[in-house]
């Protein structure tokens, strides 16, 4: 863009016409500085086969153990996945999935029995998973109002137009507005352990700590500051169309109610891919002696509220333990082992080639 232009030297004639001729020529000797003479001291790294080959070996030697570590860690993670969508006739939730209607008042529940082959030792994380659910669709992703969720009264009553068509209902602003909030996952999952002697023990599920700390404490705020009376705060707003109850009745615990309800916050963090899982509950280890989830029979009781049949989605419940690298995912371990092996292998091959080629090259030089 500077090309179209003026060149100061071109214009010299104009500028210096009144000056004495030739007077400007005196100071033209260029400075002898390293920068101007392009002689700045410089490090000139030379990547030769000699320096690269050891690097290959070192990478190989580092990556392979890391990969093995990752792979082993991932394998040690215990994971159990139960699809409760109810597509098959045989599935306990088949009825619920077929008879779904938005305005039914009586919740439909279904019970899925399962057997845990291995005991889950440490903390167990309970996820719900959805498939073919495009939480990353553009229309969906942008359909939220973070100002409203951050407790802004102004935004509470005037939701952003990005929330359309979930911004207003019956002339009242929707709180929380937008498609994301509207489609919040509302199945209730409960887990029961069937004692060897047949008693059904409910496993306590913890709902704290499932959302990012910063989301829970900073990004999401209830309007009206610390006013405990959320009903009053949300006065003048209406619940999202597909919700059964308003936002201020999400939980009885005031620390987990309204916009700072953790289930809600987790849902609001839109997933990256159409098949995703979200943290639902945490089953905490009680003491070191007994495993969190011992081997045995369990039932999963689902209050089936969330329809996925219309878009051929799937719903899953996942129980998983967690390691330092997160949930079960063999990808990283395999990738590290592969890359490490490739590097090592390349190092060996190159070493051989280099030696042979280098020698031949030298002799060729001599004959020349």
């Amino acid at each position: 863009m500077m090309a179209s232009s003026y060149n100061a030297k071109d214009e010299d004639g104009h500028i210096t016409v009144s000056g004495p001729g030739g007077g400007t020529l005196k100071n033209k000797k260029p400075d002898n500085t390293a920068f101007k003479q392009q002689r700045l001291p410089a490090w000139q790294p030379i990547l030769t086969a000699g320096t690269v080959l050891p690097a290959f070996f070192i990478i190989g030697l580092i990556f392979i153990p890391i990969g093995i570590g990752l792979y082993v860690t991932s394998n040690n993670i215990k994971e159990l996945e139960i699809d409760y969508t109810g597509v098959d006739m045989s599935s306990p939730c088949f009825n619920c999935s077929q008879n779904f209607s938005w305005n039914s008042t009586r919740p439909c529940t279904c019970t899925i029995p399962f057997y845990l082959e291995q005991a889950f030792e440490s903390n167990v994380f309970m996820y719900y998973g959805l498939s073919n659910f495009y939480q990353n669709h553009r229309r969906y992703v942008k359909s939220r109002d973070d100002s409203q969720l951050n407790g802004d009264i102004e935004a509470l009553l005037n939701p952003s137009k990005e929330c359309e068509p979930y911004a207003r209902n019956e002339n009242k602003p929707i709180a929380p507005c937008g498609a994301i909030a509207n489609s919040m996952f509302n199945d209730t999952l409960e887990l029961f352990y069937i004692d060897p002697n047949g008693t059904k023990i409910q496993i306590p599920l913890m709902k704290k700590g499932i959302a990012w700390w910063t989301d829970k404490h900073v990004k999401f705020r209830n309007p009206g500051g610390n006013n405990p009376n959320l009903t009053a705060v949300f006065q003048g707003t209406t619940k999202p169309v597909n919700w059964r109850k308003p936002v201020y009745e999400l939980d009885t615990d005031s620390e987990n109610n309204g916009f700072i309800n953790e289930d809600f916050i987790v849902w609001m963090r839109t997933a990256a891919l159409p098949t995703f899982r979200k943290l639902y509950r945490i089953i905490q280890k009680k003491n070191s002696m007994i495993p969190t989830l011992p081997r045995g029979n369990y039932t999963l009781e689902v209050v089936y509220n969330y329809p996925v049949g219309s878009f051929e989605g799937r719903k899953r419940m996942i129980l998983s333990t967690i390691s330092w690298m997160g949930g079960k995912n063999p990808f990283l371990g395999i990738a590290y082992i592969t890359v490490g092996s490739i590097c090592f292998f390349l190092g060996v091959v190159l070493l051989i080639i280099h030696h042979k080629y280098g020698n031949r090259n030298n002799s060729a030089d001599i004959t020349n």
Partner: protein
Amino acid sequence: MLRRRLNRLLGGDERRVDSRTIYVGHRPCPATEAFIPPKFCDNRIVSSKYTVWNFLPKNLFEQFRRIANFYFLIIFLVQVIVDTPTSPVTSGLPLFFVITVTAIKQGYEDWLRHKADNEVNKYLVTVLENGQKIRTESEKIKVGDVVEVKEDETFPCDLILLQSSRDDDTCFVTTASLDGESNHKTHYTVPDTEKDLESLNATIECEQPQPDLYKFVGRMHIYKKDQEPAVRSLGPENLLLKGATLKNTQKICGVAVYTGMETKMALNYQGKSQKRSAVEKSINAFLLVYLCILVSKALVCTTLKYVWQSEPGQDEPWYNQKTQREKDTNLYLKMFTDFLSFMVLFNFIIPVSMYVTVEMQKFLGSFFITWDKDFFDPEIQEGALVNTSDLNEELGQVEYVFTDKTGTLTQNNMEFIECCIDGFQYKYRDAGSELDGFCVTDGPVSKLQQKAGREKEELFLRALCLCHTVQVKESPGPGQGQADGLMDQVDGLGLGGEVLRPEEQRGFIASSPDEVALVKGAMRYGFTFLGLESKNMKILNRNNDVEMYELLHVLNFDPVRRRMSVIVRSKSGDTLLFCKGADSSIFPRVRPEEVDRIRMHVERNATEGYRTLCVAYKQLSAEEYAQADAGLREARLALQDREEKLMAVYNQVETGMSLIGATAVEDRLQEEAAETMEALQGAGMKVWVLTGDKMETAKSTCYACRLFQRNTELLELTVRTLEDGGRKREERLHELLLDYHKKAVQDAPPVKAGVTRSWSTANQDYGFIIDGATLSMVLNSSHDSNSSRYKSLFLQICQNCTAVLCCRMAPLQKAQIVKMVKNSKGGPITLSIGDGANDVSMILEAHVGIGIKGKEGRQAVRNSDYAIPKLKHLKKLLLAHGHLYYVRIAHLVQYFFYKNLCFILPQFLYQFFCGYSQQPLYDAAYLTMYNICFTSMPILAYSLLEQHICIEVLLDNATLYREIAKNAMLRWRPFFYWTVLGVFHGLLFFFGVRYLFSNPALQDNGQVFGNWSYGTIVFTVLVFTVTLKLALDTRHWTWINHFVIWGSLAFYVFFSFFWGGIIWPFLRQQRLYFVFANMLSSVSAWLVIILLILLSLLPDILLVVFRKPRGPNARQLSEDSLLQTSDRSCHTTVLQAPEGARVKGSKE
């Protein structure tokens, strides 16, 4: 209006309407019935483009005329109008930034121009009005005003000199600021004007303004009471140009003829054609490819989107309803807006910032040329000059070098070597270094006496002393008049009583250095030219007597006649004509029997590389003189076709002369001319010498410059060879061309790329010689079919010759040749280098024009793209600067395309996972900042500082230049390599993270990551990989590179924390809140980032192993560099083969 008036005035002579009439002092003259002041423009210089009012619209209009800016404007508008995935800010902000910066820069420059204009326009000048001196501002001068100018002032407009304070009605002027010539030029008052300017009643008729500084035609009608109006001719010698400075004259008065924008200076500062470099053409080609990629990506996505949506439940699931407006939109309109949305989403593939960076690189990079102290010449106290920064990289691509001979290959510093009088040879030697057996100890004078008759000798020497336009430089002592200085020198001369050494000689100033050399030569033999005093030439002869000759006429030198003459009248009353000129122009005009005696000497001198001139004289009888005088005066008064008329008279007068002798003047080679030429040839450039000089002289210069070597077979195609066979010229031409073609083209083995000259000793080198006359036969042959055939034959021969010499060229023919080569197959890059006005046409024609700040004025420098003080600087300019600039910009361009490809590809791939909904993968801030902040500085630093091979090695190994010949780094192969690399990286980034996200629970507390974390991980990998890739390519790490590369990465991390660390007010979406910090708390994210970066760089690291020196050049190079002792900045022991080899490696 003007036309009618003039017609009336001139009696309806239709041909003279394109002239203007000026009333001196605005006084009506008696000849015209009514005085109507003609309207001319005022004396305001306007070099500025804008005013305060029109700046914004005009500047914006000009900026958006550039296709790139327009494209981004369209994208921006689409974003504003259509519902697009990214906010208009993402493309609006960079565009706004670019437009603003450019506007500010242009505004500032325009402000400077306004200031300079004002300085000139408000300058106070003295205008004589009704006998009173009035101080007024320069801009208020009107055509016809009588202006007074004092010593050392510049002329405020173009003036006709009416009165000078000097006795001899002359004034001295320097035109340093116009054309750089610092010598004093003499200008003359209009003869016979009255001393009293108030009573002067005159009109001036002159041509309309035209830019040629050295041409002016006009005449002045002087009306005196009761007399016929007198008519005086006006020429350039009467015209004082705006911008020139008055010297050595107390004051002058002149009448303004051209003012303001119509002055010759203003006309000369207009419009220079823009040259575009080959790199830019490559960029445009690549852009086209990327545009196709962009459009096809958008098309693919749009199509798939509608295919996908046609499945039930996908288009509008219950959780993601459309708004009413979206539902109502027409399907085809929706498709179209979807297509536009995808275009917007992927538009970053063609970044605004590339244009900015390329421009910055060129602009800043050109400073290194001006700063280079190796280009500084202590003699003229100047370094290199860059007139355009657009062509830096073109310097690394030159295939043909067209060079002028005189002043470029040679120094244009003439030295008188010998002369030949009446067939006898006189060789001058310094008395001290007397070795020649023929010479007698008591000096040249006695030697002269031994040979030719004394009378002839003296006639010859007088001719040398008189036949020239040399001025004696006045002594610069303050308050000392011209005469004093002269007398001192005369005294000194008298006392010494012998020939002065060159150092002690007086200063002579002349338009051509040959003349000075001749005058100095005559001085050595005892005849000293003392100067011109009121039309009398004074000569100090051998007996220390002063001889006076009245100078009657000067028949100026011109390149067509190739001779000049003077007519003088001696004290004894004889009228003599002395003529000197090229042999070809003198021989036909003298008696043939005299020619034979001298021709041999002339030819021998010419083969030795000397410039020869023949000197002739003629005694004019009173009638002859009267006739000549009348003819000359008449021709000089002519307003139209003055040149032609003068020429006719000259030719008529300069006949029937008798030849006295010939001179030989040596023009020394420029410093290191031979080395430079050898280096250029070693670098694979073809050097063509285009000169107006004689073939023999030029040929010897070529030998001296080692352009022709002993074993070079010369193919001559000149008038002489054509006339050899005694047949028709055309036939002979045809025959010779075919013959040479067979020799040089068909029989020659195909030239292998990269084979140096030293390697191909088995091949016969050919040199080609052609002269102007033959060239015009080749180019303008009467039969059209033949013409094109001859031309292609000629081109093919020339292209297979190592050096081509074109002699006897007219300036326009030089340009013709350049044009022919430029437009030949393959479009080779041409470079012209020259120092004189006659080289301007070829400098303008070639891709790169280089001016030498030589002795022949500044025209070449003014019209060039680069100007250097000496020929030897060409070597570094091309081999080092050109090479580096080319490598830098080529890498810059490829890198830019690469980094945007792998930036956008993941975003494209993401569409397959988000229902083709145009969901951006990265946050808007990242989209905007990627090209502006995160990745722009390292590549800019690289493109300014990189020295992949250090300068010393480049200079020592000219063959390295061949490695980048033919745009090697920007051809489709390297482009393909970079594109594949970009695609590979893009795929790797996206799918690497994709598989990681198959379980999004990546933190050790079981919490999951969302789509923005996904994008941030990909983006982090991207920024690091792209920066580290550049780091891998950087061979020359200065502290700036370190600072910028690590600084950018640190800035990215810092920015990400900052951007995600705050709930931003005024933003409705806080997408990245703590996303980056959370990402860093996940070990898996770290591991995947490290893995992907390493895996992406693996191919590049791998290539290093394959990047072995290959081929003779590279091997030779590595040997050379091993020999190279560790220089200050050059510690390289093993050098990397440049890009080409690297690409080759990648294929294996």
